[in-house]
């Protein structure tokens, strides 16, 4: 359940920037290759944000797609899992997106 400590880091990172202002919205981007489950973060957020200026804030998670580019056939394709294999059979691929684990923005009252 590493999402718990990651969510604690999220709350601390937001508080560092917002001070005591009441936070009404938190926007994240979490890619499928980041190793972090959005649902687990949602579950932890409510617990971790309680009694902080983030309590009750709307958590919006942009679950971006994993994409890679094949250096052999130059095709770009969707990554279904961590095994970086192009449909053409080549393993010489470059990950374009999917590793994101970001707090993109917060909304304060």
């Amino acid at each position, binding site marked *: *359940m590493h999402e718990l400590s990651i969510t604690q880091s999220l709350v601390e990172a937001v508080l560092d920037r917002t001070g*005591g202002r*009441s936070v009404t*919205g938190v926007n994240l981007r979490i890619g499928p290759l980041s*190793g972090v489950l959005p649902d687990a973060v949602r579950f932890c957020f409510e*617990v*971790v944000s309680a009694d902080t200026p983030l309590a009750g804030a709307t958590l919006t998670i942009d679950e971006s797609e994993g994409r890679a580019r094949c250096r052999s056939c130059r095709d770009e394709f969707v990554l279904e*899992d*961590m095994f970086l294999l192009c449909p053409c059979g080549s393993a010489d691929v470059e990950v374009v997106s999917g590793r994101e684990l970001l707090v993109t*923005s917060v909304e304060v009252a």
Partner: protein
Amino acid sequence: MCATCGCGDDAGTRVSDLDGTVHDILPAAAAPHEHPHDHEHEHEHPHDHGHPHDDEHGHPRPQSPGTADAGHSPAAQGRTLISLEENLLAKNDLLAARNRGWLEGRGIQAFNVMSSPGAGKTTLLVRTIRELAGALDIGVIEGDQETSLDADRIRSTGRPVIQINTGAGCHLDAGMLQRALGALDPVPGSTLFIENVGNLVCPALFDLGESARVVVISVTEGDDKPQKYPHMFLAADLVIINKADLLPYVEFDVERCVRQARLLNPGVDVLTLSATTGDGMDGWLEWIRKNPHPAAAAAGSAPRSGGLRV
């Protein structure tokens, strides 16, 4: 327990000293951190979150952080959108970078040893210490949720050891290692083994500042571990297949396991050994010796970010 954010509890992180006495009961995340409380908890106005956030996603805001987003819908409702674009592991990665610099400055090579519980990490370390006695100056940092059983086993070899008990935590993080390094105070030029909490999931994401990552799996666990726990095998510099003495009794296809690991992580080293009988230990000891100390490696050890590299 920290009443503000809920981090840590009565079973929070504890770091022992060299003779095994536990002094520090501060949870790592609660070591001095502040929660501003100059606001009122009133919330008189309704928080209707009816407006869409869609237009924020996918493109960083051009304005500097902290700037009011004039004209955007939240501003129109008296709210301000603050652009952050910050990695959620940024704090851990910053502490890990400090640890890495601290270790490099002292010429200390540090191996982060990870596995599921019971794969044989401690047995491997005890045997490694005994076989390298006199050749390398070895210190150990042990991570477990509870007890000092593993640290006691290491201490019986005569080498310095620090136990970190993570309490509810399922992995070591860079902040815990920082405190353990202060307690261990390893001598310059020495070799440090960090035995992570037995867990093939969470430790993969947390850079500690180590010079290399070693993942141990045992043949009793099944040869499909790389497929099931890809993040861990992506993060590894070396995979050790342990308990090879049991291979005649279990259905474990070493070649299949290695193939799967290399499909995820083409450059990963793989060694098969038995820490109990000692078969194959030579390859492991040679791997340790080949791994240069940071002072000799100069700029060789690039920082890594969690399990995110390929």
